[in-house]
């Protein structure tokens, strides 16, 4: 199952040039771009591991592509996303986030139905990959 999170996730995978153009847009807006990775892609897991510091003072997006590729070397089998943080007062949050790398195989999520009192059913989803310990989830 293909993971769809953040912006552009229903589009085909981005090439480096696509990543560069999007990151350049974010930089031109004055947002700080950073690279993050994870092997726990649950939609509620908003804190991914940071790959280096956010790039506050790089005027060109080639640096972002460079870092994405460095991250791929180390964590090529995991999810890597590029996020753009807007520090403008009143916003101070992520403006843009898109997936730049995904594992070769995405097993998807298991839906668990918990039957409760009466006819209540509680739903939860769990990534099949997260059965295994961290670091061993995607081959």
């Amino acid at each position, binding site marked *: 199952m293909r993971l769809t999170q953040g912006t552009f996730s229903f589009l085909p995978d981005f090439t480096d040039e696509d990543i560069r153009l999007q990151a350049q847009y974010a930089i031109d807006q004055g947002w700080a771009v950073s690279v993050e990775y994870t092997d726990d892609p649950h939609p509620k897991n908003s804190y991914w591991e940071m790959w280096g510091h956010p*790039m506050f*003072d*790089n*005027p*060109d*997006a*080639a*640096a972002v592509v*460079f*870092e994405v590729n460095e991250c791929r070397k180390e964590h090529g089998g995991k999810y890597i996303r590029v996020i753009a943080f807007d520090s403008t007062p009143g916003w101070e949050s992520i403006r843009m986030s898109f997936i730049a790398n995904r594992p070769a195989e995405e097993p998807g999520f298991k839906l668990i139905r918990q039957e409760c009192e009466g006819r209540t059913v509680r739903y939860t989803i769990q990534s099949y990959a997260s059965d295994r310990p961290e670091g061993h989830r995607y081959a």
Partner: protein
Amino acid sequence: MSAKDTTVSSTVDLAEVFKESGVQDVLRELDEELIGLAPVKDRIRETAALLLVDQARRDMGLATETPTLHMSFTGNPGTGKTTVALKMADLLHRLGYVRKGHLVTVTRDDLVGQYIGHTAPKTKEVLKKAMGGVLFIDEAYYLYRPENERDYGQEAIEILLQVMENNRDDLVVILAGYGDRMDRFFQSNPGFRSRIAHHIEFPDYSDDELVQISEKMLDDQNYVLSKGAKAALKEYIDLRRKQPHFANARSIRNALDRARLRQANRLFKTAKGPLNAEQLSTIGEEDIRPSRVFRGGLDVDRRPEGDRA
């Protein structure tokens, strides 16, 4: 190639491309703002022509590779290497070879770390900052210290070489430094020599050029030299050149800064009543003559007063 030329239907008007690119403005600025440096200006004009033709060829599909643009600027201190690097960044930006056209100036300290594992992130950080622009490494030979085999400079050099090769589209590296030491640096690091296409040498300024430069510097700050001051300055330049640590235009700038200081002091001490604009902006002979250079320069013991040369 000529056979190929005839098969391409579209043509290119180089004069038109030249005009559109705005390169002309940069070259004109270069001519107007920088005095002397004729060989440097020639080389830059040649480089600009080469890049322009190369771009036209690429537009027609005749060339595909990005040419190697890394450069080395060699010359004595104060000969305008940093200033020209700024212009070069602008030029490359207008020609479309770098995307942003900013100049990041660094020295050894910015690239080399202090302990194991510190150098690589530091160098990469600088390289990332320079992407889309020009990285200017001043006194690049300090990166290589053969006397200490565990020096971290070597690590920085390796990362630099790798990025210079793999990210050629993303940044242009300019290495700068004194001629003889750069030659030795290139000899011991053949990887650099082969990755650098343009070696530009900066000649020393002649005395007349230095006088022109000082007049221009003063003019920018709305000062003028009196007649006597100009003669004194000529003499000063001649004497200063023979003394140690002569740094061309930089020495002159420092000398002028001190002359301004003396002028201010003189006005304070001698002024009786209100001063007009002319008095405030004229540097007289008496502001230049007290310089230590006229008394044999650095061999004279340091004096506590503000007249250090």
